[in-house]
């Protein structure tokens, strides 16, 4: 699923959760709000009960007074006196007012005049119509709020109609008794009781909506006018509101003068009063949902955080997967390429082996040529083995467990091998190939020649591979003094004018399975392992590898390694005094040849062409100072080596020793050269030892070899047991051992091997060479079984694995099974002999 899809689903889930929570909270809020509204309404009702009781109580006092006055036929003065006596509240008063004149007396004096008890309601409309005053005891007769004419206070009055006796004529006059109370008295009592409704206000309105008590939020003198001013309405709504407020209990929402939503709870007060009690509270105070915002916020934040973490995790995970997939894809492709190109890399030495074998078969009569071919076949075979080892060692390279097996070897042979391996491709691509050595004085060095060879071959074969046909590849090998004691510094530089490398590729040049992305490169097969292995090996040898490359212009690899000098060197190579003429169009080659010959004690002259050579030889010949030897390059412009030989022979001297230098396979020109009069051939590069041997050979001097053949005569008579299921392998090993006087018995599989060792008398076998993969019982199980035998000799007999399982883990398995050593197939005879000698020497010691 794409990332957008995952994000969409995540967002969808988040929205769904939030929506669910919101709906749940909204539902709860609604319930809570309903409860709060009911609670608010109930509180208003409770206030109404209190109010009603209070009003009834106050009215009752007024009723009692009125009844008493009526029952006593009092005059206004007497009634006032009676009330003054029974009146105990300081802030209330009573007015006795004749209905006809609207004038009367007050129980308290006019403010500011201690003698003035007269009160007048003539300017007030309060008593114009007294129909609202019921008979005594019938109902609560309460006036609207009005200004007390005696003290100017806003007041209300509990009223009763009474009859007073006119003192003038004793007649009865209708009057009204008003028990007047300041509104402030009521306001102080009407405090909303609930703390949770701290902003609640109480208001009393009469039937018309006029305020009796008006709290601060209410405007106008009439509630309905107030409502109309700030709320959308029409006459029908107003009528309905009026009916609702004056006859029922409930609540509505309205807007105040500031446009804020308010909850108004209403309930009528005692039917006879026709007042309504209104409780008002800002709706914001009831907004319980606000309390849940932190919860929603917390959930939202949590989900968002989860989403972000999820997203980051997925991104990181995807990134890793992408990288892993790319790596896997890259590895897969690299390995596919590797396997497909293995064929090429294996076929290259195989081609040399088969080709040289064919040449040898063709020239069976020519012992020297055949010997030479067989030697090259052996070199190519070794390279093939090295190549296979490289493949096997790639795991070691990757795990950094690559190790060296130093031995004494000839750098000359190494270079010859290099040249021979390169020759077919150089020839095929018609590459101008030059291999120049300089000051190679120490021929025998002590390091792992296979690894060194591998380094050199890898670099050289890359140069040849990535150079276009007709290009040139120049190889220089230089021996210098090394700062490391006992070593020489060998510099190997391969320069080509091939396709070169991009700076980007240069950065990952030494990574395994890495090849440059280039259409020209893609045409060329390669494992992509070569430089990785090379770098590892150079590092392992303590050397350096440097690469200078420019795309389209070429590449130069330089490997510098300090290599220990072998203890044994050839004796001091000095030629008898001899004048040598070296002819080559390559001045560098001329210079190195002159230096090398000079170091051998020869007096060297140089000529850069066949014509110049002819002149010099003719000149010397004329002077009677013929050259002792002429070394001619085969390929030269204008006049090649063969033509020059032919003309020397025909025009100057028929006996002058002439060596022809060849950089390539000389077989195709050998016949022609010999016919022309060449005495011998020598291959480039011109090593000191090669020149020394070839010159001595040509001049009839005895060849001296410093490398004594190994003497394995002490091993004659050794008897071994070979567990090998393959007949040919058995034949090879038996014949090989037989060459050194070593005899062997064969066990066809592990079972037979165990049986044979069980039945063998003590000391019959010096050791066992054990194949691993065999029928019935493999070598590992056989070894384990042998190690468990009761016979101490049999149980402790040395067992050397001789197997094609050559990986390090295979070796480890063998050793873990109880074996004493491991030799990989194809077997190196010297290794086999070494193992045998090691054991015989150990046996001799014990």
């Amino acid at each position, binding site marked *: 699923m794409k990332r957008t899809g995952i*994000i969409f689903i995540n967002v969808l889930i988040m929205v769904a959760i939030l929506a669910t929570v919101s709906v749940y909270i909204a539902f709860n809020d609604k319930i809570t709000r309903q409860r709060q509204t009911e609670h608010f309404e109930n509180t208003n009702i409770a206030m109404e009960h209190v109010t009603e009781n209070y009003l009834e109580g106050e009215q009752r006092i007024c009723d009692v007074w009125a009844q008493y006055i009526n029952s006593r036929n009092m005059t206004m003065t007497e009634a006032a006196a009676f009330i003054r006596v029974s009146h105990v509240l300081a802030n209330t008063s009573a007015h006795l007012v004749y209905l006809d004149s609207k004038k009367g007396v007050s129980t308290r004096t*006019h*403010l*500011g005049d201690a003698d003035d008890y007269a009160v007048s309601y003539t*300017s*007030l409309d*309060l008593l114009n119509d007294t129909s609202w005053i019921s008979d005594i005891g019938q109902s609560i007769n309460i006036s609207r709020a*009005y*200004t007390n*004419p*005696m*003290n*100017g*206070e*806003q007041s209300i009055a509990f009223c009763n109609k009474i009859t007073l006796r006119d003192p003038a004529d004793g007649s009865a006059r209708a009057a009204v008794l008003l028990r007047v109370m*300041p509104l*402030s008295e009521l306001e102080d009592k009407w405090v909303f009781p609930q703390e949770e409704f701290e902003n609640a206000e109480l208001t009393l309105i009469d039937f018309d909506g006029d305020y009796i008590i*008006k709290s*601060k939020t209410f*405007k*106008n*003198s*009439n509630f309905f*006018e107030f409502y109309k*001013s700030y709320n959308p309405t029409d006459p029908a709504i107003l009528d309905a509101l009026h009916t609702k407020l004056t006859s029922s209990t409930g609540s509505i929402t309205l807007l105040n*003068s*500031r446009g804020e939503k308010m909850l108004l709870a209403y309930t009528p007060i005692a039917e006879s009063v026709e007042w309504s009690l209104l409780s008002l509270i800002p709706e914001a105070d009831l907004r319980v949902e606000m309390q849940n915002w932190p919860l929603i916020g917390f959930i939202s934040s949590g989900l*968002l955080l989860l989403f972000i973490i999820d997203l980051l995790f997925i991104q990181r995970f995807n990134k890793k997967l992408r990288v892993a997939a790319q790596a896997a894809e890259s590895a897969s492709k690299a390995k596919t390429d590797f396997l497909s190109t293995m064929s090429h890399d294996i076929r290259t030495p195989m081609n040399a082996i088969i080709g040289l074998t064919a040449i040898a078969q063709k020239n069976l009569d020519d012992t020297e040529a055949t010997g030479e071919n067989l030697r090259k076949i052996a070199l190519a075979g070794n390279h093939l083995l090295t190549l296979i080892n490289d493949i096997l060692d790639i795991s070691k390279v990757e795990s950094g467990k690559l190790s060296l097996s130093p031995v004494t070897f000839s750098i000359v042979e190494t270079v010859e091998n290099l040249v021979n391996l390169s020759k077919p491709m150089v020839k095929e691509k018609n590459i101008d190939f030059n291999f120049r050595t300089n000051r190679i004085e120490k021929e025998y060095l002590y390091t792992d020649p296979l690894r060194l060879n591998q380094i050199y071959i890898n670099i050289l074969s890359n140069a040849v591979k990535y150079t276009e046909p007709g290009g040139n590849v120049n190889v220089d090998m230089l021996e210098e003094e090394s700062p490391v004691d006992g070593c020489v510094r060998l510099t190997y530089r391969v320069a080509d004018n091939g396709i070169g490398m991009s700076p980007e590729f240069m950065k990952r040049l030494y990574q395994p399975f890495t090849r440059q992305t280039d259409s020209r490169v893609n045409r060329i097969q390669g494992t992509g392992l070569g430089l990785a292995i090379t770098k590892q090996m150079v590092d392992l040898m303590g050397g350096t590898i440097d690469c200078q490359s420019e795309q389209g212009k070429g590449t130069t690899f330089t490997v510098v390694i300090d290599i220990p000098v072998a203890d044994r060197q050839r004796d001091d190579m000095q030629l008898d005094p001899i004048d040598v003429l070296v002819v080559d169009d390559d001045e560098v080659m001329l210079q190195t040849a002159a230096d090398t010959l000079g170091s051998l004690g020869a007096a060297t002259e140089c000529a850069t062409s066949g014509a110049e050579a002819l002149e010099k030889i003719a000149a010397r010949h004329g002077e009677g100072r013929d050259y002792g030897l002429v070394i001619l390059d085969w390929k030269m412009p204008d006049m090649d080596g063969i033509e020059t030989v032919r003309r020397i022979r025909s025009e100057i001297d028929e006996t002058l020793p002439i060596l022809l230098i060849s950089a390539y396979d000389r077989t195709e020109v050998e016949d022609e050269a010999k016919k022309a009069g060449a005495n011998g051939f020598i291959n480039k590069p011109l090593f000191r030892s090669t020149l020394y041997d070839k010159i001595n050979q040509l001049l009839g001097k005895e060849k001296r070899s410093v490398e004594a053949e190994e003497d394995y005569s002490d091993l004659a008579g050794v008897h071994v047991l070979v567990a090998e299921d393959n007949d040919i392998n058995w034949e090879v090993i038996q014949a090989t051992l037989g060459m050194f006087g070593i005899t062997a018995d064969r066990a066809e599989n592990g079972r037979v091997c165990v049986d044979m060792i069980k039945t063998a008398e003590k000391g019959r076998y010096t050791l066992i060479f054990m194949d691993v993969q065999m029928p019935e019982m493999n070598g590992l199980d056989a070894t384990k079984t042998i190690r468990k035998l009761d016979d101490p000799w049999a149980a402790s007999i040395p067992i050397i694995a001789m197997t094609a399982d050559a990986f390090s883990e295979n070796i480890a398995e063998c050793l873990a099974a109880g074996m004493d050593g491991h030799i990989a197939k194809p077997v190196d005879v010297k290794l086999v002999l070494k193992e045998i000698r090691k054991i015989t020497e150990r046996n001799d010691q014990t």
Partner: protein
Amino acid sequence: MKKLLAIILAATMLLGFAACGTEKPQEIQEGFQPKLSAETECKINIAGSYSNFEALEAEFDRFNEFYPNVELSYTKIDDYNNAIATVLEGNDAPNIFFSFSWMTGNAAYDSVFGRMENLADEALGLDLACIRPGLLSHDADGRVLMVPIFSTSYGMLINNDLFEKEGLAVPKTLQELMDVCAAFREKGYKNPMMGYSADASAPLMNTIAYPIFAGTLAEHPEMVARANACDPAAGEYMRPALEALSQLIEKKCVDLKECEKISDNYTEVILRFFEGDVPMMICTGDTVSGTGKRESQSEAFTAHPFTYTFAPVPMTDKGGYFLDSPSIQFSVNSACNDLDMTNEFMRFLLTKTELNEMASVKRLITPTTDLSFDKVYAPVADVAPELIVSPSELGIEDTLAVQIRLASFKVGTGEMTIDEAMAKYGTLE
């Protein structure tokens, strides 16, 4: 992108929160700077004769934006004129109360005046300059004890749409008025001009005559004192007013019998005007203040609304006198509780912005120098300066006003001749 969106949303939300509740009306912020602590808690009560004073209550809300803990209330006092002295002495004495020019010189209000704070005291910082000078009364000591909150005048409501419909121009002179009335009558309008005439308390006759009388006295200021003193000699100066009134009646511009059908001088006058068939309704500015609310109460007006304006009755060849009188005035009870906050409220209220706002809500003439802000009163702003008469400035007292009111009523109703009324100046009751 999502992250960017989440950041933008969060930032917007934070800005939104930060902005909440901080903004105040730009106008108020610039016009009024509080001097006292915004946390001050107190109650301020304003007492008056209005049953409703929503315009003032709206100011309470605006003031509470600066002082949220000040509880302001308005209380209607029954029988205000008689009760205010007692109220000021009692437990419910207000912080601010209505005061009227006619109280001046009346001994019954000596105690009331005794409680009035001098609002011209510079220490109070009141901006009295925003009020038209002719509306401010200074006592003998130069004190200003009353400041007009609204002003009023005498004139007529004009149904502009009706004039336009009949192709007539609103009259600017007496002759034009006569002509227009005749034209309307010819077009079938039986009552080109109407007004309240049922009793002598505030009849249309006075509305017509008083401005002319005041204008005449303004031309003879030396007579004002004598007129105030009820000197019969001043009666002669009523002649132009009474003759103009008689002329209107004689020319049947006004049919008094029809006018008597209007039962009160406020709501009924307005509702009759809203019937839409009266081109000119004679009334005071106080009556005009009730028009706004009653538009919706009139079925006729709701069905056929029209535009109307208020202008002086053009009773001279030059036009109509604009009698620039205070309507209600505020006085501060110098003995009240929380006097500092009371003065702070007065300082808040006495600005062009707040006074105009109140006048707009109440639909009365603003007392500020910005007369033309209300389109209903726009014609008043066009009155020529020489026709503007300020009774306060002129020194007209209530006694004088009563005499012309009675004289005009009696002449208008035919109870007296012009000469009789003039002769009885000072003794009319």
